[in-house]
């Protein structure tokens, strides 16, 4: 095990804190040295100060990864005390981060495969990371990539330009119809009618379940990224489990967070 050690508690320095939205900031972190490679969909455990409400680290999915340059980016959604503290970090601040954790998205077998990515909320973070890895790796993905984003209103749509700039087809759904199709992502023609070889989704659980159901009905494999509450993040405490089809408990922080939807018993 030692010989193949890959994970570590890395001391990062914040190099940029960029606000993308009233509830979201993007933190760019620099390590002193290069980093072990990581897959989009893997996550980190970030140390935050103990407060009256929280003692543990905050698990956050990797948003952007440049392992060679020792650089990662995290998309921080301000929900609890920990994430609010993180969203107020400034360039030069130090962060202790367990990196990289879990099992990320599996790339399609064929570089020609037609892919659909469906994201909502902070689920955008790992999917955008996946898109970047697909497009910018040594052998960029050649097949079609459609990226469908769901949000409450137009103002909540994140990274639409970046997605297009990476050469993906950017589609949107908003609940109020202020941008793209009106309604939830499941109503969107690209999901309902599109022909894809693989679906990837990350966002609120009800959204992922709905997307997985549509994919399953069309016999298209679908990978989902779960966000169960966890303590250790490294498979020791077994707090974050999810049942599979056979009612066995799968450990989300090691076997996941990304799972093939059809093995899950959710």
């Amino acid at each position, binding site marked *: *095990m030692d010989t193949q050690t890959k994970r570590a*508690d890395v001391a990062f320095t914040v190099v940029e804190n960029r606000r993308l939205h009233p509830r979201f900031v993007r933190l760019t972190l620099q390590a002193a040295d290069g980093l072990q490679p990581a897959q989009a969909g893997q996550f980190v455990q970030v140390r935050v100060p103990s407060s*009256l*409400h929280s003692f543990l680290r905050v698990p956050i999915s990797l948003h952007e990864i440049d392992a060679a340059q020792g650089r990662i980016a995290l998309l921080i959604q301000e929900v609890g005390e920990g994430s609010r503290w993180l969203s107020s970090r400034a360039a030069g601040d130090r962060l202790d981060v*367990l990196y990289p954790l879990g099992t990320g998205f599996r790339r399609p077998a064929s570089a020609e495969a037609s892919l659909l990515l469906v994201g909502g909320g902070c689920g955008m973070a790992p999917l955008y990371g996946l898109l970047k890895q697909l497009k910018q790796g040594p052998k960029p993905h050649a097949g079609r990539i459609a990226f469908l984003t769901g949000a409450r209103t137009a103002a909540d749509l994140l990274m639409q330009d970046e997605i297009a700039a990476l050469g993906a087809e950017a589609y949107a759904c908003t609940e109020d119809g202020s941008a793209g199709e009106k309604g939830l992502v499941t109503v969107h023609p690209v999901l309902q009618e599109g022909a894809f070889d693989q679906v990837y989704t990350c966002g609120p659980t009800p959204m992922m379940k709905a997307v997985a159901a549509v994919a399953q009905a069309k016999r298209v494999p679908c990978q989902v990224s779960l966000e169960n509450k966890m*303590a250790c993040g490294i498979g020791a405490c077994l*707090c*974050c*489990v999810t049942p599979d089809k056979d009612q066995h408990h799968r450990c989300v922080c090691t076997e996941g967070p990304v799972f093939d939807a059809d093995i899950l018993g959710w």
Partner: protein
Amino acid sequence: MSKLNLQTDIGRLTLKNPVMTASGTFGYGLEYADFCHLNALGGMVLKGTTLHPREGNPYPRMAETPAGMLNAVGLQNKGVKTLIKDLLPPLEAHLKAAEAADKTGLPTRILVNLSGSTVEDYVEAATLLDAAEAVSGVELNISCPNVKQGGMAFGTRPDTAAEVVSAVRKAYRGPLLVKLSPNVTDIAEMARAVEGAGADGVALINTLLGMEVDIEKAKPVLSTITGGLSGPCVRPVALRMVWQVAKAVKIPVVGMGGIVDARDAIAFLMVGASAVEVGTANFEDPASAEKIAAGIAAYMERKGIADVRSLIGVI
């Protein structure tokens, strides 16, 4: 100071230093190998194990609380046979290799936390562990708050506790610790009962039974409604109980409950613990136990204390 002696004894079992990791917080050990030098630990108590594999309780199993957390894992584990056959060999190999490299003296001890719902299950599993050479000791869990039958039932009455301990004592010849529940009126009485039944030592405290509520949903947070409270929040209760028990029994005491740094660990030694277990802190910093062992040495250096044994029970 030139030479510090960090070795301590839990009865027949000598540890290279007083810091072990607590069952349920350190998995099967290797989960932490990337973050922590496992051979820097005095010992590690592996995940609560039962005769047969268990799937444990439904999700959600965890809630954060002030300076701590509740868990309701419910002893999800692979069973004692898989533990012995598949999980112990790679851990033992890892420790041997690390030891060969660093030469830190005694080996890091592997203890197994053993749980069950019937005396028969306890005994059958203990018999298998008795034959497992990699296992330096057994920590008998008679106080798990998260499984229906057994677990805590055994741990809150002196007579039932003594019954299961005597039975396991006959089946397991190695160092036998009994992990005590803090959810009792008189923990010293419990400790005396298991001492009388043949335990080589007691380990305390297990988790306090607690509960958390989501007022937006008007529902308990945990699938099991109640769960086990651990973390710094319980440390004052744990310290008091270890102090009471150390005065009540002759067998060694292993102290745990909310230890996050060397200061906490030393406090437990001072109230009578011969060794400590680091638990919930491993979730916040996977290198906690290693850092705590180093911190105890630094304190001894600063205070001019040559032998860690001289700290034990000074209060």
